């Protein structure tokens, strides 16, 4: 059964890479600034999921800690960018 898990990890990583490519396209080509921020938000979530699949494959705790840090810091960055769009400055 090990082979089944390894192959499904590979397939899941391919799908996540495709999803990251879509988000990257939206970030590069998005017509306006809010589209780019949405693309960045999706991109970091997809990268976090990719790290979790790496963690399942290797059973290394470092991957999960990295995923946790990305989840927390990405939220702060998205909030800061959205606030910048609204007010024109981050810290008032």
């Amino acid at each position: 059964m090990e082979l089944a898990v390894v192959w499904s990890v590979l397939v899941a990583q391919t799908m996540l890479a495709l999803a990251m490519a879509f988000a990257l396209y939206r970030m590069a080509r998005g017509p306006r600034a809010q589209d780019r921020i949405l693309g960045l938000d999706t991109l970091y979530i997809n990268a976090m999921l990719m790290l979790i699949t790496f963690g399942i494959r290797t059973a290394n705790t470092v991957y999960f800690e990295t995923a946790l840090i990305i989840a927390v810091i990405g939220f702060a960055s998205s909030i800061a960018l959205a606030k910048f769009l609204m007010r024109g400055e981050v810290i008032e």
Partner: protein
Amino acid sequence: MSHLTDLPPWAALLVCGLMLVGAATTLIGSLGLLRLPDFYARLHAPTIATSGGTILLCLASILCFAVLQSRWVFHEVLIIFFVTVTTPVTLMLLGQATLYRDRFEEQQGVPRKQKPAPGEE
């Protein structure tokens, strides 16, 4: 050979299923982000990726390492908690900022702000 050898077949099949469904959900959400025509429609698409995909993939990881009993599954629980709490906040704030910008530029097809009734002020 690796830690996955010790996984019993039922757990391996469940982990495979959860992982594939989670990745497919994420792919569908990102496809929506790519294909939908309008920003307000696009705002809805990544939520399925973040909530559904994250919860399913973390469940696969929790199941794998809970059956193996090789490491704590605290990280996954925290990731599910943070992502579920923070995604609506982010997207709501982004939608609000976009609405503000569209109203400011007086774009077509954006709901106008309610005018205050003459009695109040």
